[in-house]
């Protein structure tokens, strides 16, 4: 475990020093402020109520989960793999006393931690903004709903991250990976609309699975089924991506 721990700390340090986290935080903050400004404009201009303080973070999440969160996850994942392949810096760690499996797992863990930090940041700031601008109906139940929604969103994002990791180990160029990811994302979104009865099998439809956790009638069976689908995705993608990573010559 010592090798994994060292690799994980190193990966987190690299992430932090490349300022990706700070950029993600600034863009997320701008996103939240813009969202709140739009609601304020709608409220004062059209006399529509908009959202309550606890609904605002969930509104932000519904937009973020389909836009900037996948975007930043893609950028960080591509940078962590394709970026290091092209800059030849992958060999710095591979020639150290750590197995490729531990190194690979540490890289993926650091991406997951980044997604979690990004989600936490958006959650905290959207909640604060929600309290400041929509000072009504703030309850403990509302806070729990926000917390659960943001926390469970991590799971579908791990699937997206692992799809990108697999692509980075197949395609040489980071730009190709980025565009193929966008194409896959759009294709799956389209398939989800056309074949709506099978949409629960597509990872893009699973991005909204947090809604299952906050409905008035929670279906444990449905949550379990979707969780197992995502877990299966994760296991298959991790295995496939690691197989390619392990066979790679540097």
């Amino acid at each position, binding site marked *: 475990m010592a*090798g994994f721990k*060292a690799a994980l*700390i*190193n990966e987190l340090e690299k992430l932090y020093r490349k300022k990706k986290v700070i950029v993600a935080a600034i863009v997320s903050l701008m996103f939240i402020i813009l969202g709140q400004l739009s609601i304020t404009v709608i409220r004062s201009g059209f006399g529509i109520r908009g959202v309550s303080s606890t609904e605002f973070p969930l509104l932000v999440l519904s937009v973020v989960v389909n836009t900037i969160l996948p975007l930043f996850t893609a950028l960080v994942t591509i940078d962590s793999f394709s970026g290091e392949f092209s800059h030849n*810096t992958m*060999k*710095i760690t591979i*020639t150290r006393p750590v*197995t490729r499996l531990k190194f690979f797992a540490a890289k993926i863990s650091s991406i997951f931690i980044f997604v979690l930090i990004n989600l936490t940041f958006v959650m905290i700031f959207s909640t604060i903004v929600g309290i400041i601008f929509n000072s009504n109906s703030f309850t403990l139940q509302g806070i729990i709903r926000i917390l659960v929604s943001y926390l469970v969103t991590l799971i579908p994002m791990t699937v997206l991250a692992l799809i990108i990791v697999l692509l980075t180990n197949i395609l040489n160029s980071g730009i190709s990976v980025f565009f193929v990811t966008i194409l896959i994302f759009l294709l799956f979104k389209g398939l989800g609309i056309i074949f709506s009865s099978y949409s629960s099998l597509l990872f893009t439809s699973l991005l909204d699975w947090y809604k299952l956790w906050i409905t008035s009638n929670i279906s444990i069976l449905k949550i379990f089924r979707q969780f197992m689908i995502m877990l299966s995705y994760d296991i298959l993608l991790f295995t496939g991506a690691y197989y390619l990573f392990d066979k790679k*010559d540097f």
Partner: protein
Amino acid sequence: MEKVIEIKNLSKVYKNGRGIRDISLDIHRGEIFGFLGPNGAGKTTAMKIMTGLVTPDSGDVKILGHSILENFEGAMEKVGCIIETAESYPYLTAFENLRQFARYYKDVDSKRIEEVLEITGILKYKNEKPKKFSLGMKQRLGIAAAILSKPEVVILDEPLNGLDVEGMIHMRNIIKDLAEKEKTTFFISSHLIHDVELTCTSIGILYDGKMLNVDTTDNILKNYVSLENYFISEVERNGRI
């Protein structure tokens, strides 16, 4: 003498037909082994296999008794290396780069990091980022990273690339000093034949992916005027030059 590196029937052939074929070699503790060969002979391929960057088609390498295929962590625990180019993260300072490497070893602290920066002559640049470094400075940082953990085995592929004359002499002295005092074993490839002659205690010649001969530098220099003559004669015997 104790065998530190054991290479057994190592083969790796790329799609273009280049690579190495059935190489076997033993390196003993405290030796400074020079790996000589023309461009494309397979030196870097062999060194990449030894450090886990490339998987061999067949054969194995044991470092300090640990197979790189079966116990990679054990094999690399006491190894430092530079393969092809001394890479570093351009967005981290020299010190932070070495701290990244240090986390993989038990007893490497900030004091040791400063010590290796001092040894390689770049201590005053410790807070600068390598993207501003010259090739020679990057190479010095690479050497600092290679010797950071006080390794028992150091594998260096063209370690003198980009160094000026002063730098070359400095590095040669570091290598000789570590081999003599710490009994560190070196496995070095270089195209600078004169430097190999001055630094290495034994020489192996690789030609067209095959190991032609291995001998001590003293023995070679008893029979030949210089290492260059020996190299030409060995390669000639095998049908080139």
